[in-house]
């Protein structure tokens, strides 16, 4: 039997359950291993897993270390019982979130329901009053820097420096996220192409239209190919064509990473997301896959209205 042997560097928190996802994972490693910081991180958390694949039989041999990690480890982001109080007012109360690799989660809720507060907590911009957040198995509160390396965040108002050109800004974002010098130009070209900014590189951000600024904001969030992408109302202020393009982009991003997006547009959730969570007055009132909703036969709009208008 002819056996090919692979050495695989594996995070303690990531695991492979099927052969298919293993290949996906290896490709990812190859792409990312050029990044010096990533390598350093790997060395720190490294669990070396050795396995061999028989060419005749598709049997995979997985070492003990790998077997110990169960299916839940494909979870990229997990938040337990998040609370946030402003004085006596609880903006977010015991919210739990879980996100798997390759999943797009839509966060819905009326104004002031706590969506933005939740997202700010997930990205380390706000410390939760209680609860825990893990990103790729790394505790955000204990090791914020390592955890944030896996995060891309687009706030409600895109964090743009009006005086910089698009290229300067994206290069700064890349350097800030420790993208290595060798790969930075390729990464910049890729991200501009993905966000439709190819011919805007030399433009001042302040002179761009709202739609293009939003795209630069998204480009900034995905430039370091993070595992978890958090987008706060990414399609606000865009024209219908741009909205369609951005939705397409989000679906693409959802293939390799996990995406959380908050929005007020229900059709957006239906067209983009795999799962939907609805918040109301700081509480999570619904957590359901879109497939599940379809099987129940209730339109999202009805569900949303029922859950968020029950007080009136």
């Amino acid at each position, binding site marked *: 039997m002819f056996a090919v042997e692979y050495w695989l560097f594996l995070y303690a928190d990531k695991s492979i359950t099927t052969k298919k996802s293993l290949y996906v994972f290896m490709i990812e490693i190859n792409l990312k291993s050029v990044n010096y910081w990533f390598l350093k991180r790997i060395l720190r958390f490294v669990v070396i897993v050795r396995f061999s694949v028989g060419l005749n039989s598709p049997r995979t041999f997985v070492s003990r270390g790998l077997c110990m990690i169960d299916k839940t480890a494909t979870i990229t982001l997990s938040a337990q019982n998040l609370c946030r109080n402003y004085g006596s007012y609880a903006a977010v109360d015991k919210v739990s979130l879980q996100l798997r690799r390759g999943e797009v989660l839509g966060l819905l809720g009326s104004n002031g329901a706590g969506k933005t507060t939740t997202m700010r907590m997930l990205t380390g911009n706000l410390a939760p009053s209680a609860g825990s957040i893990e990103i790729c198995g790394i505790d955000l509160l204990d090791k914020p820097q390592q955890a944030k390396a896996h995060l891309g965040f687009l*706030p409600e108002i895109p964090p*743009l420096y009006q005086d910089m050109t698009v290229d300067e800004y994206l290069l700064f*974002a890349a350097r800030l996220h420790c993208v290595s010098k060798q790969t930075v130009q390729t990464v910049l070209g890729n991200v501009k192409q993905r966000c439709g900014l190819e011919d805007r590189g030399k433009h001042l951000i302040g002179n761009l239209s709202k739609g293009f600024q939003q795209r630069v904001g998204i480009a900034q969030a995905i430039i370091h190919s993070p595992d978890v992408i958090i987008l706060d109302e990414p399609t606000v202020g865009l024209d219908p064509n741009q909205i369609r393009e951005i939705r397409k982009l989000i679906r693409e991003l959802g293939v390799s990473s996990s995406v959380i997006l908050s929005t007020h547009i229900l059709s957006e959730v239906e067209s983009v997301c795999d799962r939907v969570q609805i918040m109301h007055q700081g509480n999570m009132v619904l957590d359901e896959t879109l497939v599940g909703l379809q099987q129940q036969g209730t339109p999202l709009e009805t569900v949303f209205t029922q859950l968020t208008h029950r007080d009136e």
Partner: protein
Amino acid sequence: MIVAIIRKELSMLFISPLAWILLALMQLVLAWVFLVRLDAFLEIQSQLLQIANPPGITEIIISPLFAMAAIVLLMITPLLSMRLLAEERRNHTLALLISAPVSMTDIVLGKFLGLMVFFVAVITLIVALSLSLLMGGALDFGLLLSNAIGLFLLAACFAALGLYISSLTAQPVIAAIGALGALLGLWMIDLAAHETEGWSHYFSLQKHFGHFNQGLIDTLSITYFILFIVTFLVLTIRRLDGERLHG
């Protein structure tokens, strides 16, 4: 990545006309002071030769030049430091830095060091101005070095205080006025303490710089400067962290 933040601060500084205008203005004022002092020196040169152990050109021209530079820096630092954090907050760009894998310390130090690189350029220009005197005579390099070190530490204190005040508000103008007020206050303490030699004498930045200005590298002054810088940098970090925790 602290280097990325320093680079960004510097590029932001130099793509705005403010930094260039301030550099030009500062050079103009200092070159004028320099020439006035040089003129005065040439006038009294013959009389100086008659006294035993006369003051040299370094004492007559360069020390007053650095004293003037300290006052000019006091005026321009608030203008440079005001936007460091206040503008980030106003443009909602702080979220970018905080969500990136950098610590609060890196952000604050990056901004502080970025401004210090600018001040190093300013001081280099002043030193270059002083070195031009080598064409006509010899310089007391010890005194020049002591002045340069003193001015560097003083500028660092100004920058640290300006950065802290900038972290308190979202309005750059308020940050500038606040920083200017605080720096003028610290200068006024010196004027008030001049007569009394009381405790307040130790709190004045300008008073401590005065020692360097006379060529005295005093460890007490160095300690005071460093404590001042560290205190305000730590306060800035605490302020930003506090905002994350309570804000």
